[in-house]
């Protein structure tokens, strides 16, 4: 009975959404909105020339990856909020699991895991760092990069019973997050607006371009990495 009822509710919901298809554009035939157009042509503050890879210089935003330029520059305030959500949940996992008695398994990690972690870990960390340093040029950025680093830390936890990083991760998390806001405040001091992009933006496509975008993405990478490893540590060990 309960299942039939639930089925009816979910079918009704699906019908509600299908009904909304009449107002949505057809799949694949979406028009670019005015906002996205401005983002792509980097013309929010009035720039009429088309952007060209490797040639356009000193645009209002220099990131070659348009998604990155939205996430870390045009809508950077959202990203600050997003980092705060992650921060809150990492803090919450710590507070909720505080004082929880861990069950011991008495099972040592096996040899293959321990040895292979030694080989793989530097590569994983390097890849994570690469992903967030090149966030403004290639797909990726602070969030996947941080997650990859956290995955490496998870391997360390699995392979070494004694390993503990929770103190360090707290400090990294705290200072990376604070520096993000400090970058915003420096913008407020220099340009009069919170989170303004106050560095020169360079040529589209260069590694050293896009002003504060790479800096912020590196900070986000460290913060996300530290937070997620903190979550993993809290879930793995006693609080």
């Amino acid at each position: 009975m309960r299942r039939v009822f639930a089925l009816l509710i979910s079918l009704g919901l699906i019908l509600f959404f299908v009904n909304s298809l009449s107002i949505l554009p057809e799949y694949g035939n979406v028009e670019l909105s005015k906002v996205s157009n401005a983002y792509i042509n980097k013309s929010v503050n009035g720039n009429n020339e088309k952007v060209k890879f490797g040639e356009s210089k000193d645009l209002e935003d220099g990131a070659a990856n348009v998604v990155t330029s939205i996430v870390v520059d045009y809508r950077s305030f959202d990203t600050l909020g997003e980092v705060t959500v992650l921060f809150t949940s990492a803090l919450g996992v710590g507070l909720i699991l505080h004082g929880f008695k861990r069950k011991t398994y008495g099972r040592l990690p096996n040899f293959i895991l321990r040895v292979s972690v030694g080989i793989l870990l530097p590569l994983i960390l390097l890849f994570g760092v690469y992903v967030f340093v090149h966030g403004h040029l290639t797909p990726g950025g602070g969030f996947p990069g941080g997650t990859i680093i956290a995955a490496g830390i998870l391997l360390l936890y699995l392979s070494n019973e004694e390993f503990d990083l929770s103190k360090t991760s707290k400090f990294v998390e705290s200072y990376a997050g604070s520096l993000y806001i400090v970058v915003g405040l420096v913008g407020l001091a220099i340009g009069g607006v919170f989170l303004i992009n106050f560095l020169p933006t360079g040529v589209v496509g260069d590694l050293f371009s896009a002003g504060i975008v790479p800096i912020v993405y590196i900070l986000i990478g460290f913060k996300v990495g530290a937070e997620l490893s903190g979550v993993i540590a809290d879930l793995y060990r006693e609080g």
Partner: protein
Amino acid sequence: MTALLIAIPLLTAFLFVPFKEKAKFILPIIVLINIVLLFNLSINSVEAMGGWKAPFGIVLVLDSASFYTLLVVNIIFLIISLIPQITENGFSILLLILLASTNGLILTGDIFNSFVFLEITAAAAYIIASLKKNYYGAYKYLIVGSIAGGFYLLGAIYSYVGTGSLNFADISLNLNSSFLPFVSLMLFIGLAVETKILPLAGWVPDVYASGSPLTPAILGTGVTFTMMYLLGRIFITIFNGYFLDVLYIFGLLTLILAEIAAFRQEKLLKALAFSSIAQAGLVLSTISLNTYDAIKAGYFHLLNDATAKIILFVIAATVVGNFMKNKTAGISFSIASFSLIGFPIFAGFRSKLLILQSSFEKGDYLLPTVLLFSTIIEAAYLLKWNVRLWHNENEETKQIPWNIVLITLILALLIIFIGIFPDLYLKVSENITDGLMNYKAYVTTVLGGM
């Protein structure tokens, strides 16, 4: 400069992670700095984050509505921070985050940004709800809250498809009318969980009645006020009154059902939690009448309700046993509950009178009938609880700390003061209403005279 209201608490929260225990002392200072800063800002200013102007970037809008809501919410945080006993170790950082996110929610002029702040508020609220080992209640809250968050996100996306922009003012100006029913329904589902409207308010009794005074004292007052403001901002300013008829029905149903449920409760905190749902329903249906007087009356009532609820929840969760041993706290409790019922000379009387007047002016007789009926139920159970708490044989009564007694007493005196001279609260609610109803001014302020 407006961004500092969000940046300062957030920066403090980030900096104090390694020293969680010290955050308790910094919280009142930060809230005070925020309030001082608030008075130095100029009203009707728009600040573009990162320097990207209105329809493209995220803007923070400070008009008279958001200014006074900020003032109210920050003062509530100040009151909570002056009772450090109810905040457990480490939770002060959460209060800082909650302060930053409610400020952001009030100020933001961007629908996706409001979703992000809604999620921060919700995440902090889930953790606060887990106080006193109330993990199951917090878990239920998390599931319901996340689904609602998903619907809010869908509403934001539909309005993006309908306008090509995420800016509130732009949506209000350009949203295609065929999108209106979908967007408003989804946003309403998204907000109904936090504003405690009935089909989605099932989590409230579990969370508020956990026995921790902090949970209901902050979630039921500051956060509820913020969410009610956001609801007003979306449905009154942006959709300009569309969809309010549906909200009216939901509000009335919530009011009547929750009062009946409150009457049947065996525990005081559960009864108060249901009463909190009922008041949210009353405020919702009052502002849904969508006249100047009605909206004013709605927010005026919300203010009175928040004042009374802080007293009721803090005392109900800290005092066990007899009020004869804690006479001052008992008197404050009784004053607050009389105000909730709406006896003359107390503040609640003024607001219920205003609600009745405004609905008669609109020619609406359903709301007054339901309101009078629910007031009778309310009077019945609140008086029952008052009698029970003043005359019971429970001997194990703890002495409660002096600052709780003092603060609740001051708030109780404030209730009587408002009951006789309501001008202070009336001015606040008038300003909020001005800001919410003046939709043309909002659009021109944000988009710059288009």
